[in-house]
């Protein structure tokens, strides 16, 4: 919780020496509390007092790091409840659960699926980031499982789900260099679990039967000096998991209670009870409302396409629109006779326009110059989408070598640019396309 001026005053030497430039220690403390003066202006502060202050002024939700190399990720560090206030910073990560009680075929199938679902969407690689490996009581099989997943060489981080600290220790040894998350500390085993986590400097996942109990366990682990944690919002019911996820986030950010200032983990597959449709609904809910790690039972494209897309939307800067790469996009296999259509690099516009062209089934070279990431009219008004910027892009992009067609379709909303472009590109016939993308299929078919 944020310190008041009086709290800070208690930490000062209370000598009124004026070395800080203020007449009294209290006056100084009051200024520090408002953030107007750095505490370091007092040359007489003890280390203990400084530590206490550092802790008190740390961000309300901790950022924790796990994984290694290409599969290293950060979670938490969020500062707001709603994304319009300030960007959500560390996107949630999706995990797939594999347990030692599964048959070999089942394990193989999940590993294959993790490998298979891997694609690029608006410049970002989409894939499962975490393999969540669950111990259900057969130690040999568990160790075998960890080894097997490791041998599969997937680009994933590990989350070792195991409440038996002895078994966990052995499993950790196998993937120590991968900096796994370990999960499964509860009110009974937290001391032993914390020890494993501390020794290897690993993120530790805590679970409990209720929010109250989770709070206690979190406090207790904190007392043991470990602060790299993630909190399980619970799997007793969907309603409870949702309430807990919201409460954990709110208690930390709104009420400033750092005991709960950690990222959360949601077992969406378990909550959905083997129903992949429900699992998708829940994973969507928790992608928006405060799940940091979302554990799925399995992955397939049908599930991944909406989930990764949703996440990509939610974790964007609300003040900066999403953009696509400025380049030539071939749609419906265009050839040397296909016309050229120009639009802006605002991702939403690109998606709508490319989607409509696809729907038309007509081959088109879609060229996307740099338009500052704005929509057509805004980009035009801002001077980012002009006759010369479009003409220059046509000249420099290499589109003139790709097609012999010299038909250039421009958005109807910037019909005024026609003359300008024609002056710059005398070989081209500039055609004004419809105002709305939805009319493109008809327009292209009749062209």
């Amino acid at each position: 919780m944020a310190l008041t001026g009086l709290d800070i005053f208690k930490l000062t030497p209370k000598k009124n020496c004026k070395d800080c430039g203020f007449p009294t220690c209290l006056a100084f403390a009051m200024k520090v509390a408002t953030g107007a003066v750095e505490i370091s202006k007092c040359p007489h502060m003890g280390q203990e007092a400084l530590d206490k202050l550092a802790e008190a002024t740390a961000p309300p939700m901790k950022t924790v790091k796990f994984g290694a190399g290409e599969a290293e990720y950060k979670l938490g560090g969020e500062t707001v409840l709603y994304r319009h206030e300030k960007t959500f910073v560390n996107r949630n990560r999706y995990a797939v659960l594999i347990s030692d009680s599964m048959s070999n075929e089942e394990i193989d199938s999940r590993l294959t699926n993790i490998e298979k679902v891997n694609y690029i969407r608006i410049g970002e690689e989409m894939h499962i980031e975490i393999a969540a490996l669950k111990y259900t009581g057969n130690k040999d099989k568990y160790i075998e499982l960890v080894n097997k997943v490791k041998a599969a060489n997937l680009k994933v981080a590990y989350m070792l789900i195991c409440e038996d600290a002895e078994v966990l220790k052995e499993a950790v040894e196998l993937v120590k260099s991968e900096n796994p998350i370990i999960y499964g500390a509860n009110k009974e085993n937290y001391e032993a679990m914390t020890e494993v986590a501390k020794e290897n400097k690993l993120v530790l996942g805590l679970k409990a039967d209720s929010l109250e109990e989770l709070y206690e366990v979190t406090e207790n682990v904190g007392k043991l000096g470990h602060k790299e944690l993630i909190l399980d919002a619970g799997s007793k019911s969907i309603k409870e998991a949702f309430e807990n996820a919201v409460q954990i986030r709110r208690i930390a950010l709104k009420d400033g209670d750092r005991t709960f200032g950690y990222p959360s983990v949601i077992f969406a597959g378990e909550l959905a009870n083997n129903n992949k449709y429900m699992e998708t609904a829940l994973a969507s809910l928790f992608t928006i409302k405060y799940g940091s790690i979302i554990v799925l039972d399995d992955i397939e494209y049908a599930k991944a396409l909406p989930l990764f897309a949703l996440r990509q939307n939610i974790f964007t800067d609300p003040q900066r629109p999403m953009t696509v790469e400025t380049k030539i996009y071939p749609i419906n296999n265009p050839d040397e006779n296909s016309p050229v259509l120009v639009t802006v690099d605002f991702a939403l516009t690109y998606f709508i326009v490319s989607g409509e062209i696809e729907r038309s089934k007509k081959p088109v070279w879609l060229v996307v110059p740099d338009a500052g990431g704005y929509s057509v009219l805004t980009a035009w008004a801002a001077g980012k989408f002009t006759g010369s910027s479009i003409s220059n892009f046509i000249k420099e992009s290499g589109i003139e070598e790709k097609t012999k067609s010299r038909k250039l379709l421009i958005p109807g909303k910037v019909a005024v640019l026609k003359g300008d472009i024609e002056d710059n590109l005398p070989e081209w016939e500039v055609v004004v396309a419809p105002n709305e993308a939805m009319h493109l299929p008809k327009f292209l078919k009749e062209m």
Partner: protein
Amino acid sequence: MALKKSVQKYSGRINELKIGTGEKEITLGGENAMAFHSFDGEINAPKIGMEILDINPEGWTNSLKDLYKDVAEDTVEWAKAVEEKYNPDFICLRLQGADPNGANKTVEECSELAKKVADSISTPLVIAGTGNHEKDGKLFEKAAEILDGKNVLLMSAVEENYKSVGAAGALAYNHKVGAESSVDINLAKQLNILLNQLGVKYEDIVMNVGCAAVGYGFEYLASTYDRIRLAAFGQNDKTLQMPIITPVSFETWNVKESIAPESEMPDWGCQEDRGIMMEISTAASVLAAGADAVVLRHPKSVETIREFVNELM
């Protein structure tokens, strides 16, 4: 230190209004807490509607066409089948046949059909238009008259036609009016105020503040809904205290994920499942953002989202 739960109380509340008549009448709105935040205040279960058309759904994906092939030629039969089989909270009859760029049926013909549908089912009706503002203005005017007494929701009045929709729909025949704006809190507010100045009570308006499929600008939707709700609850802004209806299916079944056949995207697998998942994910997200009602197309989505809502209530 003991855990202290964080409770958020607001002074504002969403207006409560009813659609339909009789036993199956539904209530939208009434909540004074963010979506599913039952630990903060009162919430009312969001309602789930199913979309049907007044014409053969030629543009729909094959799996959906198959599902309705026996009834698609006859809208009344289609409505009855949907009511009986899936029991949605409401049926959204989309009068696409009136589209001047399509079948261009007359407003009389479409309205008569809407009346026949309304007479043969007891599920509340939401009437959606063509998206052509001029035609929709006339269409809703006629539909309002012919559906007198059915207490339907006319979705949607836009800035270009709100006068005819508002006057006929809400003022003359006491239906509810959907105010459609496109994902912007100020536009939503402005249209509500315009309708109110015309004489439509705020309590008779349902907002359709826009829809986007996940991945297609959903961030704008999420933040617009958040801001609208925070203004309605926190600032007690009367001009934004309407329930929100979101036509999820109108968007999700048009995106690449739903329409690309398996032959084109073999890796992506079953096309039907992709469409369902896009619809489910978008619907769950829209409900989490604060919608009071969603329109869906696939029975599997309806079943899943119904269970989702029940679990969270």
